């Protein structure tokens, strides 16, 4: 008996894919912390972590172990349920975003076509936006439930920052949607395979998107939510042990996912530039693997960009942040959108 035309193979296939993607996000996030510290070190003429294992490669494991064994403190005046919900929500929303990303060209196993994508829903990019906006709740609930004025202030800052920067991000994206004519992630990538990468048509849109992605991930220069010198530690001040680890981890997963989203939307997803890989005549599982690696390397480049910006630019002041968001980025995104629309109309006339 089949319910909803879902057969066992589909369930197994999706489960395997989910497990793989979640594990991958975790590992990438783990080693992103290592990469962050190494790059920070190199940019400051230091070596970075180099004691745990060869080249310090075991450092993330040591950090994780340390966080697990630290004492777990829940403030007695906090709301316990919400206090635990905060980091859990941050982690879940960070992981959820990866569901709609096409990780590579489709595979053929037996006589089935297996897309390397967990859910190819037709509102893909809206789903990404929906989940990313839910990420605010992780910060907001965590900061509020701590019952600490610094946490609360940081959470308010974080929430208003994320809400403000979602607008120009969405406006920049509308121009992309006009080009592709579809919200489905796989079709956006397919369109770029045909017509060339969106970055060629939307350089300003990409710039706006990148700046907003920095703000959405709470990265420097927009890490107002964890401004140590003003707010002690920010919204996770009262957190300790693995709950703190979850918050920090979620930030790195967000970085990875936003890198992948940027690669998918503007840099052709799993497309290899300047070559037609379909004409090589190699088995399609090789194509899938190559496409996947290409997408990952694009995402890693964006992670490097995030870190590079972080260790170059100092933190914005709060009024500068709001001014940049509302008075510069939103008008710029609107103009970009209108110009794109006008050009599309003119070409189709």
């Amino acid at each position, binding site marked *: 008996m089949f319910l909803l035309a879902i057969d066992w193979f589909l369930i197994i296939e999706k489960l395997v894919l989910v497990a793989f993607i979640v594990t991958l996000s975790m590992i990438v996030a783990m080693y992103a912390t290592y990469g962050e510290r190494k*790059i920070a070190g*190199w*940019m*400051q*003429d*230091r*070596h970075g972590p180099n004691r745990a294992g060869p080249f310090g490669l075991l450092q993330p494991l040591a950090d994780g172990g340390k966080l697990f064994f630290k004492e777990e403190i829940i403030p007695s005046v906090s709301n316990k349920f919400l206090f635990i919900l905060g980091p859990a929500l941050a982690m879940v929303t960070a992981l959820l975003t990866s569901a709609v990303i096409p990780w590579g060209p489709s595979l053929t196993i037996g006589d089935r076509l297996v897309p390397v994508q967990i859910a190819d829903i037709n509102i893909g990019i809206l789903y990404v936006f929906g989940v990313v906006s839910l990420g605010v709740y992780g910060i907001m609930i965590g900061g509020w439930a701590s019952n600490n004025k610094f946490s609360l202030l940081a959470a308010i800052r974080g929430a208003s920052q994320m809400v403000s920067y979602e607008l120009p991000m969405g406006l920049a994206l509308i121009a992309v949607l006009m080009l592709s004519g579809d919200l489905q992630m796989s079709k956006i990538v397919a369109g770029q395979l045909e017509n060339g990468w969106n970055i060629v048509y939307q350089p300003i849109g990409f*710039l706006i998107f990148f700046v907003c992605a920095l703000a959405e991930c709470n990265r420097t220069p927009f890490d107002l939510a964890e401004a140590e010198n003003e707010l002690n530690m920010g919204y996770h001040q009262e957190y300790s042990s693995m709950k703190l680890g979850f918050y920090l981890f979620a930030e790195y997963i967000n970085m990875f996912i936003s890198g992948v989203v940027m690669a998918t939307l503007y840099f052709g997803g799993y497309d290899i530039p300047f070559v037609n890989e379909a004409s090589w005549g190699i088995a399609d599982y090789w194509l899938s693997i190559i496409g996947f690696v290409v997408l990952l390397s694009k995402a890693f480049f964006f992670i490097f960009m995030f870190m*590079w*910006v972080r*260790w*170059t*630019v100092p933190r914005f002041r709060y009024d500068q942040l709001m001014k*940049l968001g509302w008075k*510069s980025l939103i008008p710029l995104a609107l103009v970009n959108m209108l110009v794109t629309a006008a050009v599309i109309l003119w070409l189709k006339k």
Partner: protein
Amino acid sequence: MQLTQRAKQVDRRPMTWLESIYLWNIAKGMMITLRHLFMKKKTVQYPEEKRTFSKVFRGLQILNRDEQGRENCTACGLCAVACPAEAISMEAAERQPGEEHLYREEKYAAKYEINMLRCIFCGYCEEACPKDAIYLSQTFAPSNYGRDGFIYKKQDLLIPHPIEDPAGFAKARGEKSVTN
């Protein structure tokens, strides 16, 4: 007034349009950090690598011996008097017949203690000593688990015997280069 030629006047002109969109300046800054990514690292990897000290570096004290390995110290107490931190204490004893190979003169320090938690490494003990018996060496960073361990006894302070352990003696004297 300028103390050095490196001082720069702060530019308080309002930002130009190019500066007000930040991007150009951020790009310039990012090129600087990118250059630093490939520069030689300034770190001295401490336990494996040690930095060179100047010849007058004042580290932990050592009690000196002469070429035949006899202790120089006569327990006169001048170092203890000179010590501003009152870190040095000692007890004198008389040399017995048959101990001439151990002590250079007829009086010696039976007990000699320096409290390294009090010592400020000023080097006045070295200056005060008329017998060339106490020196500040190139060794530094004493570490211990308890306070008692920081009270250095005579056997902790004595230089290695020049005949039985010539390499250790030379190293403690700083005659071999103490670099890396």
